[in-house]
C-alpha cells in the first residue's frame, strides 16, 4: 500500500470539512435510534463508524446521504443540507448501501456502464470493474454472482461517478480475505486520490487498517472517538507482561513493561519462559466501550 501522508494541524485549518454534524437525533416511534451525535470529517479523511447491531450506524449514514429525515440537529455534507438534495450534489457523492438486490438480469458490465451515464465525469467502467476485481465476471448476470461478488458490484457503482465523498455501509460483509485486502487497497488508493471516505464496519482490523479516525457508536450516541491507535486511552493503557514460573502463568500490568522485562531477565538470567508483552487490542477497547454504554 502507498503510505498516506498523515494529517497535520496545518492541513486541518486549511482543508474544508466534508461532513459536519451537530446534535443529530432521530426516533422511530418509541425507539431512539440516534440520540445527539456530533461529527466532523475533514476532506480527504477516512472515517470509520463502529458499533454493535442496532447502534444507529445506518440511520446516521442514511441521514447524511439524504435518504432519511432527521428529527433534530444540523447537518452539512459537502456544504449542502442532505434534507434538500440537488442533482449536482448527488453527482459528488458515492453511496454503497447496506442491502440491495436490484438489476438482477443485467450483466456486471452493463450495469456499471449504465450507471456511468448518470454522472458528468464518470470513471472508465472497465477500469472500475477491474479495481473491484470483477474482470472475470464482467459478462455475467448479476443474478448469478455470489454474495461477495454482488457486494463488489455495489462498491463499483459507488465509485463509478468519481465521487468526492463516498459512504460505505458495511461494504466488506461477505468478502473473502483476499477480496477484503483488495478492497482495502482500493479504499487506500481512493483516499490517496483525495476522496473522503465514511464507512461503517463490524471488523475492527478493517477500521484499524483503513481509518484515520474512528467513532464508536452505542445506543445512538458516540461512546468514543479518535485515532485507532489512541482510541479510548488505548495508547496510555497499561501493558500486560506474562511469563511462566514454577509451572504457573504469572501476569503483571504495568506502565513500564521494558523495566519489568529487564528485571525478569536478570532474575531468570537469560531466557524468560513463555514471555509475552501485550497491549489492549482495538477489540478489547471496543468491547469495553460498548459494554460500558449498554450498562449505563
Amino acid at each position, binding site marked *: *500500500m*502507498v503510505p498516506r501522508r498523515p494529517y497535520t494541524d496545518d492541513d486541518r485549518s486549511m482543508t474544508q470539512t466534508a461532513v459536519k454534524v451537530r446534535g443529530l437525533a*432521530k426516533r*422511530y416511534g418509541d425507539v431512539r*435510534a440516534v440520540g445527539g451525535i456530533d461529527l466532523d470529517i475533514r476532506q480527504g479523511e477516512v472515517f470509520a463508524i463502529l458499533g454493535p447491531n442496532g447502534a444507529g450506524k445506518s*440511520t446516521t449514514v*442514511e441521514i447524511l*446521504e*439524504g*435518504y*432519511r*429525515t432527521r428529527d433534530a440537529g444540523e447537518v452539512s455534507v459537502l456544504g449542502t443540507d442532505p434534507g434538500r438534495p440537488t*442533482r*449536482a450534489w*448527488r*453527482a459528488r*457523492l458515492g*453511496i454503497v*448501501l447496506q*442491502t*440491495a*438486490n*436490484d*438489476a*438482477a*438480469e*443485467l450483466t456486471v458490465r*452493463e450495469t456499471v456502464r*449504465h*450507471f456511468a*451515464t*448518470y*454522472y*458528468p*465525469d464518470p*470513471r472508465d467502467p472497465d*477500469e472500475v470493474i477491474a479495481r473491484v476485481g470483477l474482470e472475470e465476471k464482467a459478462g455475467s*448476470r448479476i443474478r448469478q454472482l455470489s454474495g461477495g461478488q454482488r457486494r463488489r458490484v455495489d462498491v463499483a*457503482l459507488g465509485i463509478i*461517478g*468519481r465521487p*468526492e465523498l463516498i459512504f460505505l455501509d458495511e461494504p466488506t460483509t461477505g468478502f473473502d480475505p483476499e477480496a477484503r485486502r483488495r478492497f482495502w*487497497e482500493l479504499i*487506500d*488508493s*481512493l483516499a*490517496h*486520490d*483525495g476522496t473522503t471516505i465514511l464507512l461503517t464496519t463490524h471488523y475492527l482490523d478493517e477500521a484499524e487498517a483503513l481509518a484515520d479516525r474512528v467513532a464508536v457508536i452505542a445506543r445512538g450516541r458516540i461512546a468514543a472517538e479518535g485515532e485507532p491507535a489512541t482510541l479510548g486511552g488505548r495508547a496510555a493503557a497499561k501493558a500486560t507482561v506474562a511469563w511462566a514460573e514454577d509451572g504457573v502463568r504469572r501476569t503483571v500490568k504495568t506502565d513500564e513493561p521494558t523495566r519489568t522485562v529487564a528485571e525478569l531477565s536478570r532474575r531468570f538470567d537469560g531466557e524468560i519462559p513463555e514471555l509475552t508483552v501485550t497491549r489492549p487490542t482495538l477489540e478489547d477497547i471496543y468491547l469495553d466501550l460498548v459494554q460500558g454504554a449498554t450498562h449505563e
Partner: protein
Amino acid sequence: MSESTTAAVTADTARRGGGELPSALRIGWARAVVETKMFFREKDSAIFIFAFPIIMLIIFGTIFSGQFEGTGVTVSQVYVAGLLGAGVMTAFQSLAIGIAVDREDGTLKRLAGTPLPRSSYFIGKAAQVLLSSAIQAVLLLAIGFAFYDLPVPADAGRWMTFAWVALLGINGSALLGVAASSLPRSGRSAAAVVTMPFVVLQFISGVYIPISTLPEWLVRIASFFPLKWMCQGFRSVFLGDAGLSLEVAKSYELDRVALVLGAWVLGGLVLCLTTFRWKSRRDG
C-alpha cells in the same frame, strides 16, 4: 498497491470537476434501454404477457365462433377489439407490479442516491411499456386480420381514432399503474394485489363478455375506469357502423371516450405526484 495504479489515480483527480450533468432525456433513454433489456430477459414473464391475449383470443374465438344476429359482426372481431384494450391496459399492470418490485428490491433506493433525474426513471418505464403494448397490439391485429376476418380499416379517420385512443389509453393506464404501485405492502404481494382487480375490470368492461349483456349497474361501475372506453373506441375503429347495435348507448360515444380517457391522464398524473413513494415502508 502498485505504482502504475497510483499514477492512474492521480490522473483521475486531474479530470475531476469538469462536465455538465447529462440531460434527463439522455439518461431517460439509457434507462429505456436497460428496462427493455431486463423486461425481455425475464423470459417467462415476457412470453406470458405477449401470449396471454393471443391465447384468450384463440380460446374465445373457438368457443364462440358465430356472428351477432343481424349485424354481420363475428364474436371474434369483438374479442380482438376488447383484447386490444386489455393489451394497452397491461401497461397499468406492468407498472404497478414493476415499480412495487423496484421499491422492494432496492432499485428505487439506489437510483434515488444517484444524480438520476426522477423523470428519467419514468421515461424509461414509459418507453418499456409503450414498446410492449405496441408489440401486443401488432400481434393481436396481425392475428385478427389474418385469421379472424377482422376488416382492415380503409379510411385514415379510423386509424386516427385508433391512434388517439391508444395514446390516451396507454398514458392513462400507465399513470394509474404508477399510482397503484404504492398500494401493495410489499413487492412480493404486488402481483396478487394488482392482478385481481385488473381481471375483474376486464370482465366488467366488455373484454370477454359483450358489454350489452352486462347488468346496467356493472356497466356503470366500469364506466369510471378507462378500460371500458378504450374497448369502445377500438370497436368503433374495427367494427364500424355494423357493430353499433351491440353498444349499450347504440353509439360509440367517441366524445365521451376522449373525455374519460383524458380525465384519467390528468387524474393519474395528480395521483402519481401526490402518492408516489421512492422509499419502501421499511425505510425511515
